[in-house]
């Protein structure tokens, strides 16, 4: 080794063989720390105490029966959104159009409700609205998939732009069926009835069932294997005889169908109304959840829960301390910041000048020159770049990577 430049005070080394125990300890530590930071910031910037913060954080989440149901209901919605976009991400198809796909599902459902609600039987209306929600959701997911498969267009831009088209279509539809409305359509007939009088349970059941199914689909089915291979390396997948175009389109149909289902449930089961803000940004939050959980459906459940816990709790703090509507967003922002930073510390360690000598002696020469190359990309990437594609696939299939 010849030194040609001055050595920095510290540098970053990629960790090899991160133990699951360590990773989870860091994650849980980060969550707790983020709550403490939220509490500290809140009490420093307002005249309320840390005790006040915690009192209403829990009061807003576990305070009453309703807040508890609400907590799990919101978690279920967010989880289902993350589940819906996960197969695309696992295939490295950067579908950031979840919001628009769900909104289109909501629109499809609403079309049926407007033209059939109160005129046909409720059962028929529900079936047709579900079918239309599927069709609309799938259409919005398959269009970018087709363009990607056929002409290799950039799916990130296309799916993003299609969100805005969906918003415009929804507004156009509302305006054309109810000219004097202020941007929201409400429905009275042909809606999904709450199960046993509990309006929350339906979403929770659907969400749990689909989460388990998605976990099985991704981990044990041939489809799940194929889409992982396509995501890992298109050349490899072609080599082993996988039809890439088919896999891309098939996966996006699945994603679109799930988004359509969410749109249907939001309109018919939850809101009983349609507006351009029906999805409330969950399509985008769901992406983050999916990423942070490393596309593991079960981990997504936990991440969604923690997110909703902070969001609902912070809303309650905000209500009682009169901090405004932005406060919960700041708090969830802190939470995300910590969790994302966590991934960095799980994958890299900071090596200071002195420490480095020890590292060299224990690890050999391997780490010396491995300074961080674009940590932003690496720290959230599951398959390690240094492995070759084939190894990466095997690794992913054999043991599930966290």
């Amino acid at each position, binding site marked *: 080794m010849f030194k040609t430049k001055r050595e920095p005070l510290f540098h970053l080394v990629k960790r090899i063989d991160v133990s699951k125990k360590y990773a989870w300890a860091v994650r849980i530590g980060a969550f707790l720390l983020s709550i403490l930071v939220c509490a500290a910031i809140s009490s420093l910037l307002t005249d309320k105490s840390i005790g006040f913060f915690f009192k209403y954080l829990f009061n807003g989440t576990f305070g009453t029966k309703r807040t508890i149901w609400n907590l799990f209901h919101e978690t279920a919605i967010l989880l289902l959104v993350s589940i819906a976009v996960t197969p695309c991400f696992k295939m490295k198809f950067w579908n950031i159009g979840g919001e628009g796909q769900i909104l289109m599902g909501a629109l499809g459902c609403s079309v049926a409700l407007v033209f059939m609600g109160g005129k046909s039987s409720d059962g028929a209306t529900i079936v047709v609205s579900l079918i239309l929600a599927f069709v609309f959701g799938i259409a919005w997911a398959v269009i970018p998939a087709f363009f990607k498969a056929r002409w290799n267009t950039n799916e990130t831009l296309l799916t993003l732009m299609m969100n805005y088209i969906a918003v415009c279509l929804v*507004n156009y539809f509302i*305006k054309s069926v109810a000219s004097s409305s202020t941007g929201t359509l409400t429905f009275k007939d042909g809606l999904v009835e709450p199960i046993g009088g509990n309006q929350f349970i339906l979403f929770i059941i659907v969400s749990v069932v689909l989460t388990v199914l998605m976990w099985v689909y991704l981990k044990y089915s041939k489809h799940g294997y194929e889409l992982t291979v396509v995501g890992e390396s298109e050349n490899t997948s072609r080599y082993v005889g996988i039809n890439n175009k088919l896999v891309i389109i098939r996966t996006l149909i699945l994603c679109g169908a799930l988004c359509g289902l969410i749109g249907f449930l939001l309109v018919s089961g939850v809101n009983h109304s349609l507006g351009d803000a029906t999805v409330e940004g969950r399509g985008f939050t769901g992406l983050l959840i999916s990423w942070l959980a490393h596309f593991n459906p079960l981990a997504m459940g936990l991440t969604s829960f923690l997110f909703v816990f902070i969001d609902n709790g912070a809303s309650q703090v905000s209500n009682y301390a009169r901090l405004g509507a932005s406060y919960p967003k700041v708090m969830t922002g802190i939470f995300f910041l910590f969790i994302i930073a966590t991934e960095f510390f799980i994958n890299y360690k900071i090596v200071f000048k002195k420490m480095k000598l020890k590292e060299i002696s224990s690890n050999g020469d391997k780490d010396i020159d491995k300074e961080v190359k674009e940590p932003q990309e690496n720290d959230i990437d599951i398959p390690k770049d240094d492995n070759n594609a084939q190894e990466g696939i095997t690794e992913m299939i054999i043991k599930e990577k*966290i």
Partner: protein
Amino acid sequence: MKKKLIVLLLVVALVGLLAVSVVGCKEKDEFKIGLICLHDENSTYDKNFIDALKATQAKYGLTDEQVLIVTGVPEGDACYQEAAKLADAGCDIIFADSFGHEDYMIQAAEEYPDVQFCHATGTKAHTEDLPNYANAFANIYEGRYLAGVAAGMKLNEMIADEEITTAEAKMGYIGAYTYAEVISGYTSFYLGAKSVCPTVTMDVTFTGSWYDETAERNSAIDLIENRDCVLISQHADSWGAPNACEERDIPNVSYNGSTESACPDTFIISSRIDWSPYYEYVIEQVQAGNPVAHDWVGTLENGGVKLTDLGATAPAEGTAAKIADEKAKLIAGTTKVFDTATFTVAGETLTTYMADVNSDAAFTPDTEAIADGYFQESVFRSAPYFDLSIDGITRLNAMF
């Protein structure tokens, strides 16, 4: 996988334990009020509700724990959830401020018959006929009419100073939606201006949003630069339009509150609804155990309709006296804002008009609104239903 599950379970158990300890603290049984807002104080519309509630709170000496303000509640199931949570927290009265909250407030009102639910701008209380659900609005068209008088005075001053000719007296107006509340508002503003400046015309553009700072700003710039408007007013909740006017030195008539702090050179006047008389009315009715009227209308007389102080530099001379004069006439009933003698629709004087007062899915017109020579706005229900297109006002777009 096993370990992950264990960790997950542990976290849930921990959180659950902490929760149980919190649930133990039961809410005290004291008088409580809740307010559900679509946005927060950054929106002038919501700020108007919040400020009035804070004033009412101070008047009755209530604590912050007794007056809960929930902000950022979308017009969906979330509104019902928040209303139910407030009812669970022991609120005796729950207000909501946005039009789209109505169905969810009704849903909550049906579930909590002991709690009084009050919804501003809503239209369904008189048809739903629930004992604990009420609508409220204000005759803000009277306030806008007076603000329009101030605008007309300013135009007259510009004509007298030979800055513009009588034919160039054109105002611009930025509205949110082509909805009766907005139409009623800009028409009364126009009629106020026309009462002092007979040649005035007005262009109206719509943004399709109650709060879109960029769109409101760009609409104002468009009206000023491309449509030759010499005075701007708006019915949308951001400061986009007033700020654009200040930058271009174009006089502005504001809404929901004074914008003088940011626009000292161009601010003329602002009309607003003061909700404190309504809060006080409901609180007193509920505390006395009396029913709350299905429709309550704020007026110049009961303090529900307010005008801010005039701006320091922009208003024309004599505006204050003229407004006081017109205000007295409105209160006395000698001036009617929607007097059919003062406007025409497609060249004709209006003798009959069926308005859509009772809400239904098809927006069927159901009530004769012209009587005694004027349009009976906010008489059959509190929320506005004047939605005519009168001569002299040009709608540039009507897509929203």
